[in-house]
């Protein structure tokens, strides 16, 4: 055994010893841990193969002499052997040329890719899938979807249970609270709840006294239950005798409906509590329909 092999073996043992220490010292060690075992097997293979390959080439450097036919030309005394290009290299070289042409002309022509283009494709594909899957959705499935939309977009203001978080937003578990009705009767309203500008006059303009306003607010806030105030007829003219709403004249007062919620989501609104932003840019038509179904279901 010569000196080189001896050094190789010493080096290999040293490396394997370090591997053993670091694996054995780590959590779990080698006990039934397949990843650690594989790592050790890999380390042994790497160290052994590397040591023997290095020994082979060091030997070759020590002993080999160059042979072969020299080229005729030499450069300042430096010559070159006439070696054939290995066939594998030649084929790979030609192959890269072909691949290069494919890459530039077919695979990825100049400007064929953009981030925004990929985004547009993704979005179109998603919308098509959404459309195909949910176009005819209704009933409880629609309400469930509405709940998901509500939890994603609405709950930050209206709260997880849609109670408006102690008056921070409208309580959606009932159509109208007395304070909201009173605010509308005192200040009037123009919130595009019908889908277009159609302002509601103030209570004073409608000929209601302060006590009428209080009575009507309490009555509507109570879900139109209890004794109907004498002056409710003023409201019924536009909102219907039971507050069921009249198309294009006055929105429903005794419950939510799809048109009403859709208009609120489309145009936003400003009322007694504060401003509600519009959500038309953030939700698609089906999601708005679903949210309407969910909100409507809350107060039923």
């Amino acid at each position, binding site marked *: 055994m010569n000196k080189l092999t001896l050094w190789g073996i010493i080096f290999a043992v040293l490396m394997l010893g370090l591997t053993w220490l670091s694996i054995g010292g780590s959590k779990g060690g080698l006990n039934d841990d397949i990843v650690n075992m594989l790592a050790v097997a890999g380390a042994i293979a790497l160290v052994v193969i590397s040591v023997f390959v290095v020994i082979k080439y060091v030997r070759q450097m020590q002993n080999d002499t160059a042979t072969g036919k020299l080229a005729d030309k030499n450069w300042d005394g430096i010559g070159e052997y006439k070696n054939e290009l290995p066939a594998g290299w030649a084929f790979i070289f030609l192959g890269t040329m072909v691949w290069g042409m494919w890459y530039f002309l077919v695979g990825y022509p100049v400007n064929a890719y953009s981030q925004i283009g990929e985004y547009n494709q993704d979005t179109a594909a998603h919308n098509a899938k959404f459309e195909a899957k949910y176009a005819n959705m209704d009933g409880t499935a629609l309400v469930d979807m509405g709940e998901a939309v509500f939890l994603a977009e609405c709950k930050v*203001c209206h709260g997880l249970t849609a109670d408006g978080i102690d008056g921070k937003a409208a309580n959606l578990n009932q159509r109208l609270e007395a304070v909201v009705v009173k605010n509308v009767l005192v200040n009037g309203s123009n919130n595009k709840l019908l889908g277009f500008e159609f302002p509601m006059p103030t209570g004073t303009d409608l000929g209601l006294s302060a006590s009428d306003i209080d009575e009507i607010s309490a009555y509507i806030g109570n879900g139109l239950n209890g004794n109907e105030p004498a002056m409710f007829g003023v409201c019924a003219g536009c909102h219907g005798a039971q507050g069921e709403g009249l198309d294009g004249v006055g929105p429903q007062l005794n419950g939510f409906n799809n048109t009403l919620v859709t208009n609120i989501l489309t145009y936003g609104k400003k009322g007694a509590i504060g401003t509600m932003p519009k959500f038309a840019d*953030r939700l698609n038509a089906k999601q708005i329909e679903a949210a309407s179904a969910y909100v409507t279901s809350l107060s039923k």
Partner: protein
Amino acid sequence: MFHWLEKHPFFFAVGVFVTIAFAGLIEIVPNFAEASRPSIGTKPYTTLELAGRHVYIKNSCNACHSQLIRPFKAETDRYGDYSLSGEYAYDRPFLWGSKRTGPDLMRVGNYRTTDWHENHMRDPRSVVPGSIMPAYAWLFENSADVDTAYAEQVTVRDFFSVPYNQEIPMKDGSKETVVLADTLAGAQASALEEAKLVAADMKDKSVQDAVSAGQIPEIVALIAYMNSLK
């Protein structure tokens, strides 16, 4: 020529530099100039909004909130349209952020309101259960620094030609003008007018009293800034 270059490595290096720099110039500069032009609908900040932006930076909001919406469906669903480079034309410095501990705020003005910010800044968990955002109660007491905001406006107008008092094209084809006062007193007055509009939508009595008394609490400036993010 080439023999000469081979014998003079300094001039060879200069030649290489010029060649590569020329390629860079014709490829990078036109694109860069185009992309850094303000997008249609991007306006410079008003005095109060800029004061709010300073509050935003001072409280290090950008450490947890990014202002950059990437073009992914999951992201545009949540935050709105993806960001364009021209939308940052008047942001000095930009506040892209690099980590989202909280949500992106690039377009928060589209889906949050003055009174929501008011509730949220005072007690984040009152509106978002489980939020890890700290409360920022001192914003309701400290006064916003309108003077510095005005100084920055004048500086960017003079050095970077930010178009104050000029017509700016909006997305719907209309034109809007962001007014910059001629004097500091004028800027303070216009910031107060803006603050009154914000405070009118707020519930906090002390904030409203302060604004009526001619002061601008930091929260008002910050909300004005948030509402301008669209």
